[in-house]
């Protein structure tokens, strides 16, 4: 039943989820030098909003896919509103202050955990399968839903990479992340760029939340579970590097999949952490890191 192909397919699925989550994290760090623990909460808000809204909308008579297409933007908007608030009243004052922004985000995580619990309740929510059906090929079976997720993740990552490389906004973001003082000297408005970067990163988190919701266990603590993995991926890949996040996402997912299959899953967890240490020793800035 379990061929190498199936394992690879599993690793790919898991990797896609991690990549989606980590893209925003790495962008924020690259551009603003902020370690953003709150990324998980933004992700969770989007996922929870969808989980809450979808059954309500579906009850009004829409089929799951249509209901999802209505609920998803709502989720994204909710998450974006939250992140704009967090930026305006918080992170804006901590530009390039790694430690300060980190402590701020710890405090925010505590507060938001409480808020999410109050607003959405502690129970687990189900987002019904939006795209049903499975696909079988080469001896591996995956759900259509996760295939769609992989495709979307690939598209988003590619889109982001192209944006950074070929659009004006992308060039500006890269300039700021390479040398923010020089960028300011040539007239790049740092404040606006930082805000833009943060917004894009939050959008990515929100999209990740909305996409992962139908496939995952949506509860108020979902943010923290993914956050730890997200940080591992971002560091191994290299802070600020999109291709790095993609590679690392796949790498961590593969280690986890193989580890969980051949060993006990909790040993796999230890192995993943040990691997982080190992990679960083050989390449102290991650696979493709610059920062």
């Amino acid at each position, binding site marked *: *039943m*379990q061929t190498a192909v*199936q*394992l690879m397919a*599993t*690793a790919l*699925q*898991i990797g896609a*989820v991690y990549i989606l989550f980590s893209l925003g994290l790495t962008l924020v760090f690259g551009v603003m030098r902020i370690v953003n623990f709150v990324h998980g909460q933004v992700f969770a808000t989007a996922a929870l909003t969808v989980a809450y809204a979808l059954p309500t909308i579906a009850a009004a008579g829409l089929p799951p896919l249509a209901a999802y297409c209505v609920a998803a933007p709502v989720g994204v908007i909710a998450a974006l509103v939250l992140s704009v608030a967090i930026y305006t009243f918080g992170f804006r004052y901590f530009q390039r202050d790694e430690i300060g922004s980190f402590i701020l985000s710890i405090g925010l995580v505590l507060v938001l*955990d*409480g808020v999410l*619990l109050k607003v959405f*309740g*502690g*129970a*687990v*929510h*189900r987002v019904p*399968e939006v795209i049903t059906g*499975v696909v079988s090929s080469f001896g591996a*079976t995956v*759900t259509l839903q996760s295939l769609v997720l992989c495709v979307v993740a690939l598209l988003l990552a590619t889109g982001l990479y192209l944006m950074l490389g070929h659009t004006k906004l992308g060039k500006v973001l890269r300039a700021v992340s390479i040398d923010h003082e020089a960028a300011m000297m040539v007239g790049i408005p740092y404040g606006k760029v930082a805000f833009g970067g943060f917004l894009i990163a939050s959008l990515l988190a929100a999209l990740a939340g909305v996409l992962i919701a139908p496939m*995952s*266990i949506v*509860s*108020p*603590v*979902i943010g*923290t*579970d*993914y956050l*730890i*993995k997200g940080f591992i991926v971002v560091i191994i890949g290299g802070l600020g590097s999109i291709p790095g996040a993609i590679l690392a996402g796949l790498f961590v*997912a593969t280690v*986890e*999949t*193989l*580890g*969980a*299959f*051949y060993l*006990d*899953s*909790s040993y*796999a*967890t230890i192995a993943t952490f040990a691997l982080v240490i190992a990679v960083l020793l050989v390449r102290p800035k991650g696979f493709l890191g610059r920062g």
Partner: protein
Amino acid sequence: MKAPTTLTIGVVAVMSASACAVDPAAAQDVIKLGLSVPLSGSAANWGKGSEFMCQKAAEEINQAGGIKASGKTYNFECITYDNKYNAAEGTKVAQTLINRDAVKFIGGALGTAPTKALQAIAERQDVLLFTVSWGKSLKGPEHPMTFTQQNTPYEILPPLIGYVVKQHSQAKTVAMLNPNDATGQETEPVAKATYEKNGIKVFASDYYERGTTEFQAIAARIASFKPEIIDVGSTPPADAGAIFKALDLMGWKGVKVNETGTGADTLKETGGDAAEGVYMGSGVVFDGDTVSAYQRKLNDEARKLLGEDLNTIQIGFYDAVYALKTAMETANSVEAKKVAETLPDITFPTFYGGKVGFFGKETYGNVQQMRLPILVTQVQKGKLVQVHRIDP
């Protein structure tokens, strides 16, 4: 730098003063029931529900006239603090309940590590402790004031596994999975031994970390042993559903058991159709004719608060309050030690209907376990159905 250091002392003094502003002379005729439960994190709903059930029981008793002992009438009051599921916070909660709030009765403690922390302090101060935790080492002659308020694997597994094995006599092999936490570590050895005693071969017994988000690889591994039964032990229903779904996707078909599955709702949320046929040992059914109107009413209220049905943990918090009332009135005293000595001999009205007492001498060396019914339930056609009930 004198100013800042004086500032320190000032701040600490003010905080300490306000923090220990406690009702002196413990507001006469109120018995405080302390609760140490998680109110944040993944177990938040359990804690919230436990607090709700304690308050409900206390409310009912107070309205019915309170507790009559040693010539006075008393009311119950539930005080709840968040123990965040670890020992350090559990100690903080214990100190606050016992040394600041002068609580003499713990109406319930959830989470083995914080319960152990609480027990260390409680015993030194002769405080009576009720807990839902399963650790065998929590009970016994060295811990005369500790009592368990829900069924543990020692009570549940023999009837549950025995029933499943009898129903599926052609299944001879099992693969087990448990979370790497206190419940999993307590469940695994009991489950393994029980399966082997029933003549079933245990192909594998794995652990996974709480907080895992993707279960495909874990499911792939257990399925690869080709067992006829897959038993996910004390895996929480949300994770269990995800695991069964992944197994279903791989085409594994067999007997599914979630030993201490507490509710069908969450299992169905994440498992979908794969939740069909899962046997559970801690599930409580709230529709159908095995349930009284009163139980249903209470569950509906809880549902509004929590978004899911009540489970055995939270029901335990309700039962403990009634057990204490009965013991206090029987002993005609509200002194913790006397009440603890009386508890083993009383019978009290339980949420499950009827009256139960305590037992457990052979397993634990002392009579400290509530003698509650074991309900074997199964998900049939998307609903949880009670298939078997054992009253020990």
